[in-house]
Structure formats: C-alpha cells, structure tokens
C-alpha cells in the first residue's frame, strides 16, 4: 500500500485544494495516470500517480484543502477495496435534467472548513516533535541560532528541513522567531459580503451562460480577497515620456534585425525595479504582525490571456539590463499566450506592473496582486501641450497610478516612490547603467 501525498507543485505552495477526482476507489491505476486536479495558489495542476495499483481510498474529498505532504489517497494491490467513506460525488449533468436541489459543488465536510480557514502557518503538529525531518546541517544551524524546527516549513525531499529553509528563516526574521506573538491579528476576518442588490434568479431568456474555468474562478477568488482584505489607496502621477520614447527608438535602431525590441513597458519595469531598490518597503509584504521586506526584486507583468489574466515574473529585475528584461518579457508573454507558463514563471513576484497604455486608456487603477504591497497601473501616453519657459511645447505624457496596501505603506512613501519612477523615466539613460 502506498500513500499519495499532496504534492508541492510550486515553490510557494503551502497547501492545495483537491478540485476534482478523476479516479474513484477501485479504479486500476497506472504510473503516470492523472488521479486528480489540484488547485494551488497559482493554478490548477494535475496530480499524477507515481505508483501503479488500485486506488484504495480517497482521503481528501473534492473541495478540501490540505497542507503539502498530507496523504490524499492510498494506492494498494486492490486486495480489499474498502467502501469509500462517503459516496463518490455524483456527477449530475450541469444542465440539470430533473430537479437537483443542490448545484454541482459537493458539500464540504465540516473538517475541511476548519482546515481551510485556519490560516496559521502550516506547522508540524506538536505531537510529532520527535519526528521532525531535518538535515543534520539544518539541525546544527537551528541549534546555533536557537530556531524551533517545529516552526520551520521543510522544502527538501519529503518535506525535510534543509539549509535553505533555515537561511530563509534567518533572512526573514533577522533573528530567531520568538514565541508566537499573542497579539490579535491585525486584520479582522473579512465581513460577509452583502448580497448583491438583485440576486440573480432564473436567468432571463436572452443570455448566454458561460461556466467559469478553474483559472477564472481562481482569479475571481484571489482578486476578491485582495480587494476585501487589503485597504487599497491610490496615488497618481504624470510622466513626461518624450525622452524615454526617443531612447527606445535609438535602442531599437541600434539593435540588430533579429534582436528583441525593447518596449516602453520594459523601460517602465526597469524603472520600477531601480526605484524599488531605493524604497524596499514598497517591495514587501505583510504577514500577520510583520512587515517582510524582500531582498530580491522580482517584477511581475500583467498579461491578458484568453482565460483571464496572468502575471509572469521577471526575476532579479533590478540587476538585469533593459535588453535582458525585454527578451525575458517577450518570452514570458509568448509563453503566457500559448498557455505554456510553468509555475516557476509565476512565482516569487514582489511587485507588479499592469499596462493598458496601448489600449487608449486615459486613467487606469489596478487591484493589488497579493501578497504584494503595490501594483503600478499604466495608462496611455498622449501628446499634450506643456508650458516650457512660458511657451506651449508638445510632449508625450503618460498617466500612472500606484495602488498600495495601506497597512504597510503610507501616502508620502508611495508619492516619493512614484517621484523616483518618474525621475528615472524622464532621465531614461539612467535605466541603462
């Protein structure tokens, strides 16, 4: 009998939700068969069988969320398939012939609710203290720095705590994590959303009903969470892009035929990355009662795709040249459009840029991409008369708005950050340094 565990499907994944079981108890399983679809913080992915056998038991029902490493199913020889604890969810047709009173989603057993709601960092249960898996080096480092291993999430094979994990703790806290603060969490749980004014009853006859895809549902959930739990505030500014546009032309004219063209967005991304170096609080996140400043600057770029919106990430953006950023951005956008983005492409973003400049948008305000602290929304660049020495001169002006998390960022900081972005874009040669 072998256990099927909730896999780690991305670097930041802490827990996963079983979206759908594709096999039921008693089914023959071959290596490589897709057992279930798992929904993570990033996307929906397949859970593959690494062992052949018979699906003996499903331990986690559809809709339930469990931490990585938890057993979700058992694969055995098929000698004795126990009756499933509860009947496998009946697949009622979506267009519901008959009068199915409950729509598709299966009821969640109460246990699932509690585990999904308890957002405490996934700690190892205290009963298992003796059995914490950690490398000897990690143990030794933990001892040296007085770190409680039961509070460290392992990322090594089988959830083993390894050097990197301890280094992460040291980096994040600077000091060993003390006993958990007794103070209440700064954010109250979200109030229940008032029911929309006109609850949709039976759809009017002349509408088309499109079921949301998993990804769209994921986007919907995350953006709702963002807007409901993050106190957004906004600061706008206008940038004179005349010189930046000229620089871009020069860059692209001097580049070879086959090299990637630098876009305005690439310059904006670079400017943001450099400004974030100066304003690390904008490149941060809030976790419980801690402000965590990231050491890396990884700028995400919002890309619209047929299935919705994705934000692939350019890693260490600040240390990359404009041409490298252009090349990587182009590759990421192409991958996004082909639905070929890997989880690693979507991970680790510390700040985002969303640009509707090419779509004639006069103002644009974006929703923060959690757990980031801010997002910069770019509207179109327009030719406008600007007084220069009392004379009207035509310049290219671009409107931008930063949405920021007011729990950790305040107006003056954000305004100064925007000033820096503006300064860099108006002196675009500083972007090439």
């Amino acid at each position, binding site marked *: 009998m072998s256990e099927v565990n909730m896999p780690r499907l991305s670097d930041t994944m802490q827990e996963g939700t079983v979206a759908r079981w594709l096999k039921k108890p008693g089914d023959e399983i071959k290596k490589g068969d897709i057992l279930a679809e798992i929904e993570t913080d990033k996307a929906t992915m397949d859970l593959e069988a690494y062992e052949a056998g018979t699906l003996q038991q499903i331990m986690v029902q559809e809709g339930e969320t469990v931490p990585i490493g938890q057993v979700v199913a058992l694969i055995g020889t098929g000698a004795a398939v126990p009756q499933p604890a509860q009947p496998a969810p009946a697949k009622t047709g979506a267009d519901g012939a008959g009068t199915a009173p409950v729509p598709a989603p299966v009821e969640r057993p109460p246990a699932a609710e509690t585990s999904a709601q308890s957002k405490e960092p996934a700690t190892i249960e205290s009963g298992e203290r003796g059995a914490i898996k950690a490398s000897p080096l990690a143990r030794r480092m933990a001892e040296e720095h007085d770190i409680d291993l039961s509070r460290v999430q392992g990322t090594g094979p089988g959830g083993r705590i390894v050097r990197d994990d301890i280094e992460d703790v040291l980096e994040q806290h600077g000091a060993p994590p003390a006993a958990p603060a007794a103070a209440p969490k700064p954010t109250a749980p979200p109030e229940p959303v008032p029911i929309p004014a006109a609850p949709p009853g039976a759809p009017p006859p002349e509408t088309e009903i499109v079921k949301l895809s998993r990804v769209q549902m994921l986007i919907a959930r995350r953006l709702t969470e963002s807007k409901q739990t993050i106190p957004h505030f906004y600061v706008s500014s206008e940038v004179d892009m005349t010189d930046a546009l000229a620089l871009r032309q020069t860059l692209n004219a001097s580049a070879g035929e086959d090299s990637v063209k630098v876009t305005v967005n690439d310059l904006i991304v670079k400017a943001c990355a450099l400004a974030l170096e100066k304003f690390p609080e904008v490149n941060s996140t809030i976790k419980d009662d801690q402000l965590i400043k990231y050491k890396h600057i990884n700028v995400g770029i919002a890309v619209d795709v047929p299935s919705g919106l994705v934000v692939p990430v350019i890693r260490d953006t600040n240390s990359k040249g404009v041409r490298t950023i252009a090349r990587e951005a182009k590759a990421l956008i192409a991958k996004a459009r082909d639905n070929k983005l890997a*989880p690693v492409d979507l991970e680790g973003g510390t700040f985002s840029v969303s640009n509707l400049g090419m779509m004639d948008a006069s103002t644009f305000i974006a929703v923060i991409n959690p757990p980031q602290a801010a997002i910069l929304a770019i509207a179109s660049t327009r030719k406008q008369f600007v007084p220069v020495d009392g004379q009207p001169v035509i310049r290219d002006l671009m409107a931008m708005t930063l949405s920021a998390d007011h729990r950790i960022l305040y107006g003056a900081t954000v305004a100064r950050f925007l000033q820096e972005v503006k300064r860099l874009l108006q002196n675009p040669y500083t972007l090439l340094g």
Partner: protein
Amino acid sequence: MAGTQYDVAVIGAGPGGYVAAIRAAQLGATVAIVEKQYLGGTCLNVGCIPSKAMLHIAEVMQSMASMGELGIELSQPPTFDMSKAVAFTDNVVKRMTSGVGTLMKGNRIDVFDGLGTVEASHTVTVTKGELAQSDGSPQQFSADKIILATGSVPLMPPFPGIDGRNVINSDTCWHLPKLPESLICVGGGVIGVELACMFNGLGTQVTIVEMLPTILAPVDDEVRNLFVRSLSKLGITIATNAKVESIADEGDLKKVTASTPQGEKSFTGEYVLVAVSRSANTSGLERLMEQGLDNDRGRVRVNEKMETNLPGIYAIGDLVHGAGLAHVASTEGEVAAENAKGHEAKMDYDVVPNPIYTFPEIAFVGLTEAQAKEKYADVRVERFPWAANGKAVGSGHTEGFIKVILGKYNEILGAHIIGPDATNLITEYSVAMHNELTADEIIATIHPHPTLSEGLREAVLAAEGRPIHIPPKQPARAR
C-alpha cells in the same frame, strides 16, 4: 515512418541523451532517439570509456617499474604492441555501446541512425549519415517534446598548421598505428592531462603546453602543486604561460611554436595532440537557431528545468555548458525527461563531483580552499596523507592526501582527494554534501578497516583537530 508521432524525441545518444530517453520511457512516454554517429556518444566511443581502458594498460605498464621490490623479476623487459592495445579498447567500447543498444530495445525506444534536423514546429528530419546504408529518403517524425543532446566536439583553434599530418585530438587519438615516440599536448586542462598521463604511461615522451599560468586551473592549489611535482617525476614536461602560435613540420617531426613572457619557444615531437577545449555541436540545430533558439555562440541557454526559450524544447549536456562531464549531462537528461513528462524537476549544480583520471588520480567536490576562504569567514582546512593509511601503503600508493574544508556549522564546503582511487572515493563526500551531512555524521559512521575509505573519516577528524593516525596540529576544538 513518415508522420509518426512520439511523446519525446531525443537528439543525440550520448550519456545525456540516452539517459534522458530511458527516463522518459520509464515515465511512460513513447520515445525516439536520433544519433548521427554512434550510440553512447563521445563518452563511450572516444572519451571516458576508451581512455579508461587505455589508462588501465598504462597503469599496468607503470606498475612493472616497481615489480622488483615486490620480488617479481621479469626474465626479459616487457614489450608493448599498440595494435593489440587498440583492439582491447575497441572491444571495451563495443561492449559498452552494444549495451546501450540493448537498453534502447529493452525500453522500447526507437533508434534512428542519421543526423536529426529539428524544427521549432517539433518535426525531426533524419538524414542518413555516411555510416548508415542510405536509400536516400530522409525519415520524418514529430514529437510532443524534444530534448536536444547533441554534445560537443573538440575545438580545433585556427593555428597555422592545425590541419597538418600527425595533429590529433581526443576524437582521433585512439587508432594510432603505433605508439608515438614523443607527443606535444597543447592544453593542460582535464582532457589534456589525462591523455598526457595515458601516453606517458604507455612510454611516450610527453610535453604539455598550456596558455594559462597553471595547468588544471579549477583544481585546488595545494592539490595542483603536488600533481605538477608528480608529473615531472613521471618525466612529463610542462610549459605554462605558453600561447601556441603555429604548428609546423620539422623533418619527420612536428614543431609547435609558442609565445611566452620569455619570448618565443618551440617544442618538437612526433605527434601534436590538441586538447584546448570543446565547442557545442550544433549540427542539425541550424533551423532552430534561425527560428530563435536562444544561445550564446552555439551554447543553448536553458533554465533550471532544462527548458530552452522555445516551448516544449529542452537542451542538456555539453550543448548547454562547458562542464564536459557525462554525469552532469545524465542528470540533466533525467531532469529534462521528467519535466517533459509533466513532472517538476530542477537541476541543482551545488554538488558536482569532478573526477580526473591521471597518475595519481584527482577528484574534488565543492569549493577549493581559496574559494571557501573568499566566501566564508569561518573555515577550517585539514589534510590526511595517504602515507598514514595502511591500505594505501600496502598497495604502494603513498603519494597524495585527502583535504577537507569545513564551514562554521561543521558542514563540508569542499573535499579534494589526490591519490589512489580518488575518483571512486569522492562519492562519500558527495553524498554527505548533497544530503547536508556534517563532519559529525561522517565521524559517527564506522568506516571499515583496512580500506582507503578510512582516510576520508580521518581527514574530517583532522579538520576537527582530532585525527587518530597523524599527530594533531591544532588544539582539539572544545566539543
């Protein structure tokens, strides 16, 4: 076969490619592998394997020198027949490559003989190589995922005279009609010194000409210093800081002219062996390059999942980097195959063992002493000499040492072995480093006596200041 569709196609059947193919097949993929010359690639045919066979012969020859003190007298001096030695290595190669063929069959992998030309649209066209029977028509198939593993070829820099007679390289040095009297080895990197030791052991007079100030640049300084002394004891001449300018004929011999800080120098020998570097082999990838395959002068750029910038196309091995290590290519092949089959695998280059097959052998993993001291403030370094190990002394291998570099947390930052069986022994340190075992776990592990492996534990004990079989140099660390 036209229009056949595979899950995974691998281009190149070297140690990266054939391992990738097997791993993909294990994961349930239908797999095709294309090879233009011979299964097993450079490693099995003209690299690791024939050189180990020939080095074995050289080692046997060398051991004859010290037979007298073991009480063995040869009634007449040994003679050496190059053609029989070549036949022996050929046989070894044949056994190993036919083994790869069997593995392909056993894993139901379709093997295509010929040059595979790849398109970004994932079609592969196989044109028959010179070696195969040709009916003229190219075969074509397509694959969901493609793993490029075309390897590398010896780099022949454009020195004047490089294309002259008796100028050989690591591909062409295996079938010489007779043992060269003398040989100039251009390049003192790993391949150069291995071949230099091999020919020297067989009886050739060898001179190494290296452009850099040292041979074996990546090797720990202390190890290199001892190695250089060993080479001169064997009678190998080394010229460093010597940049080759030209190769010419001088009567029946070859003359290599090099510029040095002391002015021009020349070296003469029967053969010139060029072992300066290897360059990525991109034949068959021309179309992909036109279609935007990201590369740096032929070396294909990949991420840690071995993905290129083109969707569904992976690249591994020497095509990707200059490591020139078969075991790295193989591991990359496994990573690429797993990702191609939808698993999540990442390549981790932190712990890569480097074996060097010379007399004496060298092997190392992790940082050199200089690198460790640059990176960390708290570093402890100690050595254990083979002269203090019973098994080594008993087999007459007293030269060399094991050197261990420990960090603040007793972790092993680097390990360097020069001496008997170094290339096998390094694995214990690799396992420890990869799994984050510290000096304490190595010390706590019982090592069998009498073995060379005892030395591995002793070196760690020495770094801890408490060796058993050598007098302590530094006060024992308070535990």
